[in-house]
């Protein structure tokens, strides 16, 4: 009984936090290269709306996913263009993407509101892994493919970041772009790819909402998830594996809070994820003291050869 509660909660937590994990991993990847992306929310919602429209028109959720990923990647490249090439303020550029994305998605999806997706993604079990006691029912069964892929992507990203040359290059660009430049690495190219990939993952996170979790489109349906993902990246200390743990923890809190349904008004329950987010950031800050908590050294600074 107790165990079923535990595995059931974990499973629901994973289903809830899959888009957060995707977007947070994307943010981690971008920030590790030294670029802050406040456009995650905009990239997610644009991914959600294009994914839905393409899936509904073509009848294939996978084409929808492809479209969402492409849109996310392109918007990511735009952010890189503003932040790296134009050396514009990264905060403002990201905010612009979010505000524009929220507006544009509403415009694009106007005629698609309230029409459930005819062919949505299906839940499935992972062969072999779903038979593992405890872990199987908790993480490897009854989820959408994108949830399993999020777990896989976290492992791959973690490996790339910490155990490959590409990862070392990426981290160096984020910590000390001048050193990377001296070593013959293209800071510009690295940042473009990292921010583009981050956008791609945010797009996938958005598509999960409109193609699998909800299978429908609603204006503003990401409802701040992109911002929560930003917080998760900090809470996870810019580590993809920790991002999965943090996402699950977050999802578990959210899932469990629904057990209070009878005693609390629904509006206050809906508010909880945002309260958790603030608490998570405060805890991170308290846990690590005041020195930067492992944030990439050059985070938020544009780089230009010969200038500090």
């Amino acid at each position, binding site marked *: 009984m107790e165990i079923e509660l535990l595995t059931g909660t974990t499973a629901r937590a994973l289903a809830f936090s899959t888009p957060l994990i995707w977007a947070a991993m994307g943010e981690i990847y971008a920030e590790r290269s030294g670029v802050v992306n*406040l456009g995650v929310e905009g990239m997610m919602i644009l991914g959600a709306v294009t994914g839905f429209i393409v899936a509904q028109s073509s009848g294939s959720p996978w084409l929808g996913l492809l479209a969402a990923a492409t849109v996310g990647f392109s918007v990511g490249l735009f952010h890189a263009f*503003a932040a790296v090439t*134009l*050396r*514009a*303020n990264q*905060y*403002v*550029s990201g*905010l*612009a*993407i979010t*505000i*524009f*994305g*929220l*507006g*544009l998605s*509403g*415009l694009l999806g*106007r005629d698609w509101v309230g029409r459930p997706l005819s062919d949505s993604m299906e839940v499935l079990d992972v062969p072999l892994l779903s038979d593992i006691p405890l872990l199987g029912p908790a993480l490897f069964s009854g989820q959408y493919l994108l949830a399993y892929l999020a777990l896989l992507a976290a492992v791959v990203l973690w490996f790339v970041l910490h155990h490959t040359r590409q990862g070392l290059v990426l981290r160096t660009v984020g910590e000390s772009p001048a050193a990377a430049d001296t070593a013959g690495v293209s800071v510009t190219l690295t940042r473009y790819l990292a921010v583009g990939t981050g956008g791609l993952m945010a797009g996938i996170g958005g598509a999960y909402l409109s193609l699998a979790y909800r299978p429908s489109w609603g*204006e503003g349906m990401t*409802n*701040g998830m992109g*911002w*929560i993902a*930003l*917080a998760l990246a*900090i809470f996870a200390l810019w580590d993809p594996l920790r991002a999965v743990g943090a996402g699950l923890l977050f999802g578990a809190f959210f899932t469990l809070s629904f057990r209070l349904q009878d005693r609390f*008004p629904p*509006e*206050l329950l*809906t*508010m909880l994820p*945002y*309260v958790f*987010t*603030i608490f998570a*950031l*405060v805890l991170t*800050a*308290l846990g690590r003291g*005041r020195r*930067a908590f492992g944030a990439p050294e050059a985070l938020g600074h544009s780089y*230009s*050869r*010969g200038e500090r």
Partner: protein
Amino acid sequence: MLNLRFVRHPDPSPVLVFAVSLGAIAGSLLVTAVLFALHGVAPLAAYTTIIERTILDGRGFSEVVRKSIPLLLAGVGLVLAFRARFWNIGAEGQILAGAVAASGVALFVPVPAPLMVPAMFLAGFLAGAAWGFVPAILKVRLGVNEIITTLMLNYIALYVVRWLINGPWRGTSVTGFSYSDRFAEYAWLPTVGTTRLHWPTLLLGLGLALLLAFVLSRTRLGFEIRMMGESPEAARYAGVNFLWTTVALVCVSAGAAGLAGVGEVAGIHRRLIEPNSISLGYGYTAIIVALLARGNPLAVIATALFMGLVFAAGDIMKVSLRLPSQMPSVINGLVLLFLVCSEPLLRYRLARRTLKSSQSAEGGATG
């Protein structure tokens, strides 16, 4: 090959700044024209209709000004916060906090009639300030990212309002609707004639803009604030108390947004209603207002009017031109995107290549 190259120029002239901002606005209006055309509306005719019914029409213009009031108050506040290098993205929540406090006073606190409106403004200012105090203190004491906390507090404020109008504050005289009872008449703000232009809030906004402009340019405090923004190291050296100055500035900034919330409930709705109807995203648009004004509180008066025009035009687009209601928020995003992309124009200017530099292989804006 063109005999030109980019030269850095550290201090752009006010004329250039103005020209570039105007260019950004023009660019976004151009893209909007394309959007009009895509929706089967002739752009020129659309803009003509919009101008006729907003700027050239008395009632229409009162709506433009009316919608620019919250943008002015929140925008002036944000100029102050951005000057202190505090990224307050939370004006939306601070507006709602102000609206809640004012409604609470109007509905439940027995204040003598003549003092009611001042009491509501005071409560709204304090509530907005409190909503800003939390992220400010978390930032200066613990280094918690204020962008995320202020944004989270927007959502929290939104759900608090929803909870209030569906639960404890739900009106006794209304059935089937989620809003509070109507305020007593002495808690309403006077308006100009039959328009919805609640002038006391407008005066507050204008007064605040003037006051801030004076403080920034003529006082020691203003000097310190400018120093904090422009060279924090020097400010620290000069003995500016960063911690408490930042907290105080953010509280004033958020309090100004709170005042905007008071204006919306006391001047227009006269009751606490659905949060997205109290603030139509004014708190987010105020960020654009403040950025367009580039830190100048007097310029906020102009930029708030412009964004107020966009909001008012939204109504015309929807009703007269049958364009989607999402148009204003798209225009919002476009203005900000163009603003971002025009930023490098302020930092570089084109100059004729001198002999020496034309020989070097270096090109473009990497200098």
